[in-house]
């Protein structure tokens, strides 16, 4: 797994999708947080984070995801995750992220469930 950090954004009228690629550590996490907060500032309250191309997340990455959830909650928004590996899904459930954000197998389902 090459650690090429990248974020792709697909913003539609009602929602926006942020797709990460690479190790979700501080560097990628901060990028993600900045992009997500920019979208929230623009008025987006329905966000999808697609982690299909992110096989590895560390504790800082997790804390940044929690931060994005909290920022969205302040605006009464919703965050859905998709593309998680089985381990990532278990981690998200154990870390209570799944209590505050949706987890879906793919982008289409994540968007359909806002």
């Amino acid at each position: 797994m090459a650690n090429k950090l990248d974020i792709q954004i697909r913003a539609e009228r009602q929602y926006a999708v942020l797709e990460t690629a690479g190790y979700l550590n501080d560097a990628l996490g901060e990028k993600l947080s900045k992009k997500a907060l920019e979208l929230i500032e623009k008025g987006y309250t329905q966000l999808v984070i697609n982690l299909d191309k992110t096989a590895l997340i560390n504790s800082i990455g997790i804390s940044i995801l929690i931060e994005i959830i909290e920022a969205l909650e302040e605006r009464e928004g919703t965050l859905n995750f998709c593309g998680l590996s089985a381990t990532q899904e278990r981690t998200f459930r154990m870390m209570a992220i799944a209590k505050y954000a949706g987890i879906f197998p793919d982008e289409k389902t994540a968007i359909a469930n806002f």
Partner: protein
Amino acid sequence: MRVSSAEETIQRLIFSLSELEQLGQTLISGHSNFNVSSKTYLRITLGTLQASGGAIYCFHPSDNHLTLAASTPESEMAPIEIEQTEVETLLECSLIALDTPPEPLQQFIDRNAELMDGNVKHQLWVPLKIHDEFLGILSLGGLFGRAKFEKWEQELLNILAHQISIAIAYSRIVEGIQSEKFRLFMLAESAPQICQLLQPEDAAEQVVHQAVALLDANVGGLMLIQQAQQKLELRYVFPPTLISENPGEDDKDALSIPLDSDTSEAKESDERTSLDMLAGVVKEGKTDRCFTKPDNLFGGRNLMAGPIQGRDGDILGVLVVGDKEERGGRTAEFTDEDEVLIDSFAKQAGVAIENAHLHQEALEARQLQTEMEEARKIQENLIPDTLPDIPGYEVAGHYEPRGPVGGDYFDCIELVAGGWGLAIADVSGKGMQAALLMATLRAGLLSELSSARGREHDHTLDMKNELIDMAMTLNSLLYVSGTEEKYATFFYSHLNPETDMLTTLNGGHNPPIIVKNGGSIVWLGEDVGGLPLGMFPNDMVPLIAKYEAEQTKLESGDLVIFYTDGVTETVNIDDEFYDEERLEQIAKNSHGGDAPSICNLIYESVMDFQGDADQFDDLTLLVLRKK
């Protein structure tokens, strides 16, 4: 300048109480992350105190830096460094007017005021702290409509600053708990996951990935011991681009560490490198770490390594992680807790890696077994099941490989042009390679015999030359087919049953015995033996020992015994060889019987002699008897 009336003061007090309640609710609302809630805290503080602008700075004790958490109006600021003495001064103060700061802070303010001010000229700092733990600074700009704080406003400011301090401390505690929860879960989750991986390469990759994530590292690697070369060899590195990014480290071989160097002396020295550390971890079997060392291994400024141990406690290698990060992109040192964590994880990794290697070995053994079975089938087809009837002669053979695939060969071939070819050979080595060389020899022999060789020759010299030419052809064939260590001893006999003339050529093989009808013994090819086939190139053969052929006329009752060294070199439990003398004796004793019974008698004699000792080599007998 406005003067506060009593009514105005009461209204502001009511407003402040309501804002304080909101602040309390923010703290307990579950929005624990201060990065998210800091703007709310600042907004409430500025609103309550009617300040025109301000900022909250958070202190990071791991590297003594201040970062901007929130500011009004919004601005950005790169982390700024703060000295320990400056932190201590801040801890001693409750309010700091920036135009008359305590002397130890003057330099810090001069150095950073412009950076920290953003778009508002800050006038007042309130250190954020709980007991003696410094957490940050609440900075305020000008007061709206008045020059200075009333006493009750100062008290309110202290309460607000305390609330913000609690929020920062709470956020850090929650973050710490989340981080530990994540690590513990990862540790528990990773074990079954990596133990399921059956390919050593996959196991190595996953072990490194999990370790990197578990320890908030940015680089990692797995090095395993190469016992034969006594060195640590890199098996996987994260990120994979790391090797090519390091000048001179363009392949994995460049990242191998010899284990025979003495690291103990270097360990006491400041010059100890990360290479010494890794070799030391393997030698001592203990986790270790180093920070900012002269070499650039793994590109890491900050490395920690744990020994990878197998089930029986043997050190298999070393797991290394580096460049631990903190929020904000700062590099942190690994802690004692991290050492415990990598130690626990490395134990699981050891089991996973050992499992994967054992699985790989089992697969290879199964593959080898399949190949050996195939080789055995090939070889079975090369050894004749039955031998032909030669007019006026009896012929019998026995072949017993030591393992599933042997290296002996014998055959009795009726030649198209008339006459019979009797061959016996012993290919060096065992297994698939020996079987392939034997197949090559047999194919070459059959090819030679189907051409001009073997036609009836009236002239003795022509027949001998034919055999010598054949030997040279076969020698060349085997030489180019195998390695230097791969060769075959070979004895070939051409029998003309009409003339009873036996023309023989010895290529380094054990000389066959002729037991004459009268009981006398003749050793065939003993004095005219050439080199084994395939040992030297053709142009060197005449210089060492050229091939020669000889001719013997067989008479009624004569017995020719061809054999491989598995007969004469059979060892008994007293480490004695069966040797040529015993063979000669049993051959003499068996004289008078038919070829199959003589063949069986010799075999039984060898087996009796061997007793409970192991069979060390393939055993082959070919018996020819002139009726």
